[in-house]
């Protein structure tokens, strides 16, 4: 048999987005891989240098279209740092609520796409059906199902509508009843276990040196979760466990994500209770007008001379559904950020593709890449 390079992508059912996995094969064996990115590069970091601070939020939603809230939160934390603005506590709880619902939504999307790669049609439909309930909730308080533009520098855009928390609890109850069903369909099935056990193994030491984060590193037994290790927003006050597994294979990543959804439900119950008991403002007072006037709520735009505003830098790091996302915002005193730099977790996870793909068969690529949970929007930015 002779060696050859084949292209899986940019249009391929495995890719879940626009990217190209070049694979060097000998027969059915994978000898080398080379992910080719850039098909979705929109220059978000460059465009941000030309936008008001609040206008960048629009771009953040487009960074990862299944985890928009996580990216909004990431940027907002860094921007607030660099501008020396502090949000009210209720806004922080609302942001954590967004984050955790987003984590469930993102993992459900991953679940649906992943099982479909394996050829399981029913779980795909269940996953999409249940994700829709989460999107309905988002729609009820942001008006959008995908690109929310809800968080603002200094708080969030609006408070929750009447009766939201009760509806949210209903969704949580429904979801927690569904998780055992998902498990039965997947890890309870011999076909699934035969397909996924021992596939795409990446040991803890390799994960650390190759910069892998999120469910992938936790599936290798490393207990790293920024919500615990370096709490941001109000995660310090919330009670939850870090989901870990030790097999470091595709099944382990499945188990970690399932457990994370259960933990998110646990966090959300606490957050909803807190929100019920603590009404209050959701955006800081006296925000500078130039943050992006069309977006600041009327009546709350304070006045501050732009020249008197201090320079600063902001660095934030959040546990996005895919892993560790970072933002670095440089404020040179102007109306726009001087430089914005993002770190995408999927970017790092993909860059190590050689480590978890070489040595397996071509037919193993869809399950392995499915378990990585690729989101090209945030890789290319």
């Amino acid at each position, binding site marked *: 048999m002779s060696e050859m390079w084949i292209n899986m992508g940019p249009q391929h059912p495995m890719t879940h987005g626009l990217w190209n996995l070049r694979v060097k094969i000998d027969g059915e064996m994978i000898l080398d891989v080379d992910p080719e990115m*850039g098909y979705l590069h929109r220059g978000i970091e460059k465009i941000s240098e030309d936008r008001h601070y609040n206008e960048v939020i629009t771009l953040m939603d487009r960074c990862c279209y299944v985890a928009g809230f996580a990216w909004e939160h990431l940027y907002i934390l860094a921007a607030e740092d660099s501008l020396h603005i502090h949000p009210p506590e209720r806004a922080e709880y609302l942001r954590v609520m967004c984050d955790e619902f987003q984590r469930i939504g993102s993992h459900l999307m991953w679940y649906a796409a992943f099982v479909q790669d394996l050829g399981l049609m029913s779980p795909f439909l269940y996953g999409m059906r249940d994700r829709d309930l989460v999107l309905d909730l988002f729609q009820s308080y942001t008006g959008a199902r995908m690109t929310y533009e809800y968080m603002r520098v200094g708080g969030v855009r609006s408070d929750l509508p009447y009766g939201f928390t009760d509806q949210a609890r209903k969704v949580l109850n429904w979801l927690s009843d569904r998780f055992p069903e998902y498990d039965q369909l997947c890890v309870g099935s011999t076909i699934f276990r035969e397909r996924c056990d021992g596939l795409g193994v990446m040991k803890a030491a390799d994960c650390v040196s190759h910069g892998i984060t999120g469910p992938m590193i936790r599936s290798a037994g490393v207990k790293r979760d920024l919500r615990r290790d370096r709490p941001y927003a109000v995660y310090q006050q919330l009670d939850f466990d870090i989901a870990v597994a030790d097999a470091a294979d595709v099944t382990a990543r499945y188990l970690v994500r399932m457990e994370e959804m259960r933990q998110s439900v646990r966090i959300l119950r606490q957050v909803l209770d807190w929100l019920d008991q603590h009404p209050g403002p959701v955006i800081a007072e006296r925000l500078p007008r130039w943050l992006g006037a069309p977006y600041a709520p009327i009546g709350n735009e304070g006045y501050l001379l732009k020249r008197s505003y201090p320079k600063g830098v902001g660095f934030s790091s959040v546990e996005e559904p895919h892993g560790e996302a970072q933002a670095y915002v440089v404020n040179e005193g102007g109306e726009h950020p001087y430089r914005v730099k993002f770190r995408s977790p999927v970017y790092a996870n993909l860059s*190590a593709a050689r480590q978890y793909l070489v040595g397996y068969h071509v037919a193993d690529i869809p399950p392995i890449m499915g378990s990585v949970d690729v989101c090209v929007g945030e890789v290319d930015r």
Partner: protein
Amino acid sequence: MLPDDLSRELGPKLGDRLLGVDPFPGTAGRVRFKPDAALDLFRAVRDDLKFGHLSMVGGIDWVDHREVFYVAWSDEIKQYLLLSADLPAESAHIESASSIWPSANWHERETWELVDIAFDHHPDLRHLLLPDGYTFHPLLRSFKLHEPEELEVKQRRV
């Protein structure tokens, strides 16, 4: 870990190539170093200070010079550390961190193509996000938006 601890740990190893350690919000501190100390510093940070995970590498164009920064994370002390070096704008280059942290590979490719900072002895320095043959560096301040650029896209090499 505080900036003082960092300079006490790193000072003897780097000597005058360590330019200082400043406090930096959200991290243990920002280590400023001379570019020729890069590999020694990376090794010291990874092996002695136990920052095993390199999160990101990025560059900033300050017009008169460029800055390259590295963010590392330690599972032991649960803190971030920022390393930063100033490079001359005319020939911005620094030793690649890929041999110390393999995760630097793609971050350096991106920094090279977007901010025009070259990484010496990088295993695979080619375009990542932009098409092959692209000669502009979009994240430089001299690259203005709203001005159309003529661009010839070559075939990617196989």
